[in-house]
């Protein structure tokens, strides 16, 4: 095989590229050539290690030593000491921030791994269309343990002890929910899996179902055993065709093995699962609306209590959990409640999956222990803000959440801290915004979404959100007045207090949090007709800077509405009455001759 005795892995992630990883690589390569070691040592540029704060990271193979904050000038010492003499370069080793001790042994060289994959443990490892691969990775073992060695209440005790809370957003203790459903008397009970994932930019549940459908099936059977339900229903959006097809394959395979059906694993317990399709209404992620939709009624929420655990699908006790919640269950049984509870914070145990999106370098799906800070998520795992721009805010919890500003970067992420900060955990969408994002426009975007998705049953949500959206539209059009800010605040609070379900009760959050943290931006819009981020088109003006214009005609030729006039090699002119503020002239101009104001 390989002729190389050593391999030097240089982090070339976008975050580290800013800190000279190309130079580091070339200084290694040049020096190796100089010393005649190029046949023995290979230098490779990798993607992000996920610990950008200490970047650039260099990993030595095969001994796995990791060096942090490496500079191009360190290459010589690393080659001479590490490769030639076999000594680690002490000063470049990672120092534990708490104890101050240097990490030098192989066993602890994985300190840069900030993620733990529990819910995503099989995603990207097993073939989701092969039940055997799931079984090879302890699949259905937890079910076996529950059915043959534990009583239903013992299983529930374990779930309670683990501290697992609902991963769909609300954070209700999962064990307690199971216990309530179990204790309600009923001849027929139901177990439901909520796959109505609707937050813009969120795809945690889809990924789990596409990558590991059996984990959800296994957990639903365990849930059925605990609560006394013999029937499971998966409510999934029809717009997730791949997830649906893999789930169908998984269900068929589980039935063929007898893991679904009658007398599962010889225990006498019967359980089967059906799929129900949703048409993609956001409100159907709310459990009562979801249940009505499954019953064939309009997807509208109803007042709680009664909770679905008491009276749910067809009026029977129904336990509704989200995909990610279920994905944790088999691990809790296999590894133990204490193991699970050792991860996370005091009141929020385990890990949370986040879909990182927006103005961030490493867009992707991550799973971190609860209690990880936003800074670690955004700057280390996420590789920082795209284009080296300044962080402005992050929206967690989708349209129901709020914006968290730079002052919360060091807040440990858990259910309670996010609520206290005016946002919420939500299902795990995390949208990162930079200095170019207008907070009023973002709030308007989310309100536009809520207005579309409101089911219309109660007036505060149906009418109130519409009015909120209109006010925001007025402000971004430059027609707002200062009193609008008070109107927004008052109306938001009315909607929160008076709406029937979670959708309306949380929909004003983007407005309230942006008003709280970015009031000066609202004021700039209404007082000075100025959008500080330059995003609100009605408030932006494109003009030609006469001194800089060379008359190259590039803007004239690219303007889609013919608003630009001018002769070759003469100063051009933008007709403001025709301009649609698309910004093409600004992008195309090679001389910086377009002024945005």
């Amino acid at each position, binding site marked *: 095989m390989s002729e190389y005795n050593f391999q030097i892995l240089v982090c070339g992630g976008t975050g580290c590229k800013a800190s000279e990883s190309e130079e580091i690589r070339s200084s290694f390569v040049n020096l190796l050539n100089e010393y005649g070691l190029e046949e023995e040592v290979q230098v490779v540029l990798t993607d992000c290690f*996920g610990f950008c704060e200490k970047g650039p990271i260099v*990993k030595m193979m095969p001994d796995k030593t990791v060096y942090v904050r490496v500079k191009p000038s360190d290459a010589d010492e690393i080659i001479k000491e590490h490769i030639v003499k076999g000594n680690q370069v002490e000063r470049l080793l990672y120092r534990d921030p708490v104890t101050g001790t240097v990490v030098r042994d192989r066993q602890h060289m*994985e300190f840069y*791994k900030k993620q733990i994959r529990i819910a995503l443990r099989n995603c990207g*490892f097993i*073939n989701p269309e092969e039940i055997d691969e799931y079984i090879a990775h302890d699949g259905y073992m937890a079910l076996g343990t529950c059915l043959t060695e534990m009583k239903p209440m013992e299983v529930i005790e374990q779930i309670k002890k683990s501290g697992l809370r609902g991963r769909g957003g609300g954070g209700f203790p999962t064990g307690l929910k199971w216990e309530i459903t179990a204790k309600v008397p009923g001849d027929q009970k139901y177990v439901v899996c909520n796959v109505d994932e609707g937050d813009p930019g969120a795809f945690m549940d889809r990924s789990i179902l*596409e*990558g590991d459908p059996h984990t959800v099936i296994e957990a639903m059977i365990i849930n059925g055993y605990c609560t006394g339900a013999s029937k499971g229903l998966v409510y999934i959006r029809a717009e997730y065709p791949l*997830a649906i097809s893999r789930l169908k394959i998984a269900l068929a395979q589980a039935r063929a093995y007898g893991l679904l059906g009658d007398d599962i694993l010889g225990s006498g317990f019967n359980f089967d699962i059906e799929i129900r399709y949703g048409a993609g209404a956001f409100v159907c992620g709310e459990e009562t609306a979801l249940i009505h939709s499954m019953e064939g009624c309009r997807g509208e929420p109803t007042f709680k209590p009664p909770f679905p655990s008491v009276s749910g699908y067809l009026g029977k006790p129904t336990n509704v959990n989200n995909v990610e919640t279920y994905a944790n269950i088999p691990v809790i049984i296999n590894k133990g409640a204490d193991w699970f509870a050792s991860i996370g914070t005091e009141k929020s145990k385990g890990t949370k999956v986040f879909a990182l999106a927006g103005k961030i370098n490493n*867009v992707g799906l991550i799973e971190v222990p609860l209690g990880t800070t936003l800074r670690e998520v955004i700057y280390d795992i996420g590789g920082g803000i795209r284009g080296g721009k300044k962080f402005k805010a992050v929206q967690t919890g989708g349209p129901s959440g709020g914006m968290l500003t730079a002052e919360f970067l060091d807040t440990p992420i858990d259910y309670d801290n996010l609520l206290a900060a005016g946002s919420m955990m939500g299902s795990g969408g995390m949208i990162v915004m930079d200095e170019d994002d207008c907070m009023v426009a973002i709030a308007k975007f989310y309100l536009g979404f809520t207005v579309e998705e409101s089911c219309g049953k109660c007036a505060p949500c149906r009418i109130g959100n519409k009015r909120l959206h209109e006010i925001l539209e007025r402000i971004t059009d430059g027609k707002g007045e200062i009193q609008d800010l008070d109107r927004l605040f008052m109306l938001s609070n009315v909607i929160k207090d008076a709406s029937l379900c979670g959708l309306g009760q949380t929909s004003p959050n983007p407005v309230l949090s942006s008003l709280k943290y970015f009031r000066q931006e609202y004021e700039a819009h209404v007082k000075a007709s100025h959008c500080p981020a330059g995003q609100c088109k009605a408030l932006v003006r494109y003009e030609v800077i006469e001194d800089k214009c060379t008359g190259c005609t590039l803007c004239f030729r690219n303007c889609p509405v013919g608003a630009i006039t001018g002769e070759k090699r003469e100063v051009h002119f933008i007709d403001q009455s025709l301009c649609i503020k698309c910004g093409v002239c600004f992008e195309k101009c090679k001389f910086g001759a377009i002024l945005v104001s």
Partner: protein
Amino acid sequence: MSKITSVADLKKKKEQVQLNLGLRENSDAADTHVQIRVGMATCGIASGARETMNFLVEETRHQAIDAVITQTGCMGFCYAEPTVEITLPGKEPVVFGHVDKTKAREIIDRFIIKGELADGIIPVNFKTIDEY
């Protein structure tokens, strides 16, 4: 498929598939086969994972490389799709990002055949449940 009717059955099944999949040291498959997994969730497929997979299948067959190529779910590196994980016999898995046909060819020629690394490796940046 024969039914699994007891926990003992399930355990037997687990051992048997672990051997077949090369997850055990004494398994034949682990010694001889190159294992290739292509991230085929919605995001991967949208970025061209299916073309990458087809290319890998054709090219390994063409070059008579003993490879088992399967699909898998999302590895989480959306910024680097399509992603491919390759395990050479007896070695630790290596994940590559941005694997289009050109990259796939480079990976076959350099990594699979010669055992050299190639640029674009995605370091494993998470702990598994067994590592924690």
